[in-house]
């Protein structure tokens, strides 16, 4: 489409076949030198981003006697799956992962339901205390999380919620609400209200208009919020360590992997093997949804 437009220089016209003889390259079609430089820069950046992953793979595959060997080969000499075997069959790794998965799914679902409905009220209705409510939700993001741990712990003791998942699931769900409401409200605001009004004229009730019109249209934002809450709970350490403590059967993986790091001797290979097993599903999910991520986040961001 842009092939017909004049060049920036005004003189260097496109020659036959869409190739330009000289002149500055068009946006999006760089010259060969620039293209090489771009690839070089991206390759180096990618290498830095991936480097720790490559290293950890190498460490996980090393036999016990080479763990502290300063050596950069990705697949070490005498590579062995011993660490993977040990982690899978002789530690409660899958137990921890299962626990984390349960808590995380529960949390992300509850948090999403509460946030989706509250955000609707904040987006579509004007009521007293609305501005104050939004400011409060925003201000919660400034609170250092550690600050609330002591009172939340004492509260959990009072209600008998320590060393159970009830306390943890409730704590995670509620703490995910403020950020989720902001993102979702920002997204709802961009959906024209006319659609819901049309549905109302056709005989829908208020709540049906929300459920049948707005919610389906907000699917990208809902997915992002779910993903964010999922990830936040998935890797959470401090609240879990306070509310679950050291009760073996209930450990989530962030608490569990600390076991590989005994006071004086870290089990490097086990730790690395566990790290890989834990990361793979999340990384795949993340990369798969990363395109979605761009649209959902930006729309929330544009509206503030």
């Amino acid at each position, binding site marked *: 489409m*842009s092939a017909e*437009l004049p060049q*920036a220089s*005004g003189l260097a016209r496109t020659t036959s076949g869409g190739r330009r003889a000289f002149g500055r390259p068009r*946006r999006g079609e760089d010259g060969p030198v620039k293209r090489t430089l*771009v*690839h070089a820069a*991206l390759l180096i*950046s*990618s290498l*830095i*981003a991936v480097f*720790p992953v490559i*290293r950890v793979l190498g460490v996980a595959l090393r036999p016990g006697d080479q763990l502290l060997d300063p050596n950069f080969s990705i697949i070490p000499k005498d590579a062995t799956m011993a660490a993977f075997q040990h982690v899978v069959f*002789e530690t409660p790794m*899958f*137990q921890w992962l299962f626990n984390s998965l349960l*808590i995380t799914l*529960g949390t992300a679902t*509850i948090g999403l339901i509460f946030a989706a*409905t*509250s955000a*609707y*009220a904040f987006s579509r209705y004007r009521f007293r205390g609305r501005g104050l409510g*939004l400011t409060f*939700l925003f201000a*919660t993001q*400034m*609170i*250092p999380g*550690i*600050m*609330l*741990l002591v009172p*939340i712990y004492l*509260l959990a003791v009072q209600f008998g919620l320590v060393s159970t998942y*009830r306390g943890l699931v*409730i*704590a995670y769900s*509620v703490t995910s*609400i*403020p950020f989720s409401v902001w993102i979702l409200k920002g997204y709802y*605001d961009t959906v024209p209200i006319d659609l819901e009004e049309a549905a109302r004229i056709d005989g829908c009730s208020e709540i049906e208009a929300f459920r049948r019109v707005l919610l389906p249209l907000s699917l990208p934002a809902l997915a992002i919020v779910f993903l964010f809450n999922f*990830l936040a709970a998935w*890797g959470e*350490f*401090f609240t879990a360590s306070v509310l679950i403590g050291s009760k073996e*059967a209930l450990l989530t993986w*962030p608490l569990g*992997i600390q076991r590989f790091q005994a006071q004086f001797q870290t089990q490097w290979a086990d*730790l690395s093997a566990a790290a890989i097993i*834990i*990361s793979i599903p*999340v990384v795949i999910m993340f*990369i798969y949804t*990363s395109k979605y*991520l761009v649209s959902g*986040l*930006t729309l929330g961001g544009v509206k*503030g």
Partner: protein
Amino acid sequence: MFDTSHAAAALAEVIGTLVLLAGVVGALEVVLYLIFVRWRKARLGLPIMLVAPAVVGLLLLYVYPLLWELNVSFTKMSLRNFVIPGFLGLTGTKDIFFGLQNYINVFTLPVLKETSFYQLFGQTVLWTVINVFFHVTGGIALALLMNRKLRGRNFYRAMLILPWAIPSLISLQIWRTEYNQQFGAVNQLLGLAGIPAVPWLSDNVWNFVAMIITNVWLGIPFMMVITLGGLQSISHEYYEAAEIDGASSRDSFRSITLPLLRPVLIPAILLGTFLTFNNITVPFFINQNRLETSDILVTGLFRAAFEYNRYGFAAAFAFVIFVILLVFTILYVRTTNALKGAYE
């Protein structure tokens, strides 16, 4: 090993929680429905019902704990004085009222064993500014590189997003081992360049640098994704028009790209500042809670509360930290109009 009885117990507990919550929320909604919709016939009946569960949750897990902290911040509550504080420590079983002394102590006495508030504050400012600066510039640079016709774009995107995708506890464990003075990859790479081994974990300044390197690595992908989203929403026509007018690519970057990225970047930078300022995970796990002198405010707060168990003092300290960020945010929002449109 996978113990199915444990798994069943865990499953029962999570499902039990969901049922419990559904019951409580359902009962709440019925009561609200009867009061506001049936009886008062209030215009705002529905929104009241919609926000109610979240409001109850936030009251319980934010408002109550904050009030509790505020109350305790005026007392001497600690492991030694571990009593139910009552109102300001006056009505409890033991008089532990301390007035404003905790707040005064934050500024006049060392907040940890030796480290002063001012050192932690300075380190936190440095930590936040350096991190956010590199996150934003690095994120923009990579987004600009990616925002073009490019072979292998999806490959690069997948690679570059990895630091964000890997659970941070995992990558922090990895980084921590790579900072090992003798065997870590960081020192080995420096060794190849003839640079002597750096004590990343035992020297407080180098430890601080190690935290920053790690967090810069962790934070760039988020800004890259945000910026890429912003860049893709800018219409090509602006650039074409600018080219016709003879603008150089630097001109177009300054007068088209940056201004149009502003509405995306301004809130993202604020969010990034919150996350960095309050980031306890990275300093905590890189330092393994050892060196006190490379702490930032929130890791100091963690120690005050959970290592020295000075609950009254930690509460006052926490409010001071919160107010610092609050003041910054108010100034930022005033000057940049970051929340424009959010209250409409």
